Structures are given as C-alpha cells and as structure tokens.
C-alpha cells in the first residue's frame, strides 16, 4: 500500500457541521459552517475553561497539582505583563493571558491529539486566517489602548523625540511601516512555525512507513528517520510553547509602547 507524501493534507479545511451561509452586506457570503479548524478552536477554548474551572475551583492556600499548574501559567503571564508593561500591567493581564492560553492550547492540541486524525488534532494556529486575526486583534487593541490613554498624542509613537527635525522625513514613514507590519509579523511567525514544524514531522513520519515497506536494506534509513521524528516531536512541543510565549511577550511589548508613550 503506497503512502503518498502529502504533508499538506493535515491542513485541509473540512466541514463538520453544515450551517447556513450568511450574506453580509458589503462583504458578500459568509459560510458559518463549523469546520475542523473551528471545532479545534472551540475545543481549545473549552479545554482552557474546563482546566481553569477545575484549577481555580478550590482556590486553596496550599494548592493541589492542577491548581499549581494553573497558577504557574498565570504567574508566567503575570511576570510578563508586570516586567514589560510595569505597574499598569495588571490591567492588560486578562487580554494577554487569553491570547497566550488560546495560542498555547491550540498549538499543543495539534501535538497531543494529532494521532486521532480528526479535528481534535487539528492545529488551528497553522491557519493563516486564525493567526492573522489574532495579530489584528493585538494591534487593534494596542491602537485602542493608545488612543484611550493618550488621545491624539498617540501619533507621537511615530515621531520619537530627541531627533533633529530633518530626520523626521525619514523616520516617521519607517515608524509607521514598522507599526503596521506588526500584526503581519505576529501572524506569520506563529503560522510559519506551526506549519513548518508540522510539515517536517509529517514528511519524516511518512518516510518511516515508506522505507519500512521497502527492502530490508532501506530499514536502517527508516530507523534513522524514526529517530529524527522522535527528536523533532520533542522540539515541536517546545516550539508550541515557545511560540505562545513569544506571542504574549510581543503583545506586552506593543502594549508597553502605547502605555508608556511619554517615556519614548
């Protein structure tokens, strides 16, 4: 039985529950059917709520295992917001935490439940639509916070003080572009990492089954391939965590830019 090398198959969107298509004026038809990607996101959000529901149920002074893990993740994000944004960081903790938890659970879900072969193991963060939406969410929040905190002084973000004025002709466009490109880099970094890692894993794993089906002479290569799959899986788990962390860190950094605009 030949196994075709099709590493992109895992990213295919498949409909699970058909829902009516809504026509939005000005935008066109919007298919709201629940696909595997949406189901995976629903599952991730549900898991987060269930996990934190149990982890914070007792709110004991001496925490149990679940509560310890829950507080560990909370403490991680709390450390980020308070160390990067500073004293005002607590206010933005729920937003950053929601982002972090959502990205982390989406990433890990694809790693942990990939063996099921259905939506449970679908990595929603490998969808550009998802990561770009998250990136836009971050930058729109940053802009909203910026205007809410600074009013029109928000535009000072693009004109750093302490620069000779002729330089502004060069500096302001660069600052604007670098600001506008932030959601794109956020989205592409997460998307690229999840996509690349999963593709490589899939290719090596497919190699194993192909090589083992061939003559015994190829088995050594198959075993080597299997070893690298094991190693890459460990690496991919690290990447899954790291990318969620990086997403949270950058969100904090961008928020800090507009929260402490005066110190620019």
């Amino acid at each position, binding site marked *: 039985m030949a196994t075709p090398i099709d590493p992109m198959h895992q990213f295919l969107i498949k409909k699970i529950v058909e829902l009516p298509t809504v026509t939005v004026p000005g935008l066109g038809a919007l298919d709201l059917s629940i696909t595997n990607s949406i189901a995976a996101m629903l599952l991730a959000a549900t898991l987060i709520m269930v996990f934190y529901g149990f982890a914070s149920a007792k709110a004991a002074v001496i925490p149990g295992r679940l509560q310890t893990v829950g507080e560990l993740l909370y403490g991680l994000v709390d450390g980020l917001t308070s160390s990067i944004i500073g004293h005002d960081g607590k206010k933005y903790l729920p937003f950053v935490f929601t982002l972090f938890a959502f990205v982390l659970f989406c990433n890990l879900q694809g790693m942990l439940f990939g063996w099921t072969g259905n939506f449970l193991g679908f990595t929603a963060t490998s969808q550009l639509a998802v990561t770009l939406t*998250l990136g836009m969410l971050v930058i729109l929040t940053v802009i909203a916070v910026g205007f809410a905190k600074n009013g029109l002084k928000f535009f000072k973000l693009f004109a750093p003080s302490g620069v000779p004025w002729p330089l502004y002709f060069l500096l302001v466009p660069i600052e604007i572009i670098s600001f506008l490109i932030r959601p794109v880099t956020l989205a592409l970094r997460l998307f690229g990492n999840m996509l690349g890692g999963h593709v490589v894993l899939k290719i090596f794993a497919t190699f194993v089954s192909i090589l083992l089906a061939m003559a015994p002479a190829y088995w050594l290569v198959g075993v080597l391939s299997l070893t690298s799959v094991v190693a890459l899986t460990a690496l991919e788990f690290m990447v899954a965590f790291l990318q969620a962390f990086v997403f949270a860190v950058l969100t904090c950094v961008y928020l800090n830019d507009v929260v402490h605009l005066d110190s620019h």
Partner: protein
Amino acid sequence: MATEPHGTVETTEAPKHESGGLPQLQFEHWGGQIVWLLLIFAVLFAVLSKVLLPRVSGAIETRGAKIAGDIADARRLKDEAEVQARAAAAEVAEARAKAQKTAADAKAVASAAAAERQAKEEVALAEKLAAAEARIQIARDEAMGHVRAVASETAGAIVQKLTGKAATAAELKASLA
C-alpha cells in the same frame, strides 16, 4: 450530510493542491474562521477575565497575605520571646545580686555576733583570771603569813630538842625578826 461537503472540498481542492497552493490560502474558509475565532475569543476572554482569573489571582493573593501574616506573627512572637528572655535574664541577675547581698549580710551579722561573743568571753576570762590571780595572791600572802608561825614553831621545837627547855615566845620572835 457531513461527508458530502467534505467530498466537495476535497474535489475542489485537488487541482489547487497540485499547483502547490497552501490549503491555508483558500480564502473561502477565511470568513468563517475569522468570525468564529472572534466569537470564541470574546467568550473565552469574558469567562477568563470575569470569572476564572480573579479566582486564580485571589488564591495567589490570599496565599501571599497568609504567608506575610504568618511571618509577621512569627516575627512578633520572636520579639516577644526575646523581650521575655531579657526580662528573665534581668530577673535572674537581680535574684543573684539579692542572694549575694543576703549572704554577705548574714556573714557580717554572724561575724559581728561571733566577735561580740568572743569579746564577752575574753572579758569573762580576764575577770576569772584576775579573780584567780587575786586568790593566788591572797593564798600566797596567807601562806607567807603562816611561814613566820611555822618558823617560830619549828624554831621552838628545835630549841627544845637541843636545849631541853622551851624558849619563850618573845625570844623566838626576837630571833626571827
């Protein structure tokens, strides 16, 4: 019902796939994902920020307050114990000083009493000595007084023995003078 769209997606997808297009760039799936993601994110954010995260931070704060309170209690108790230990040490020192003073006083009283008694004894002894000396003096004087009589008697007896006749008292007295 669920398999039918699945099939259609696969078939419409196949040619794109061969040309190397990413499934992620099938824009017909973007709208649904974006809308659902925003919905899911909003619900998750609301539940986390309003219900779950306050419980987590509450537990952490309660723990911090409890630890801080316990440490403050322990510190207070330690201070109290130190104060008590100092008081006890002072009390011991005071008691020791008192005891030493009492001992010294008792010694002084005892030695004073002994000295007095000794002095009294000495006086009594001296009196007895004087009395004894006086008695001795009297006895000697008396004895000395008797010596004359003894001598005269002896002389009378000797004279009588030698001469055969007794000497008169006047003669004896004159010879002894």
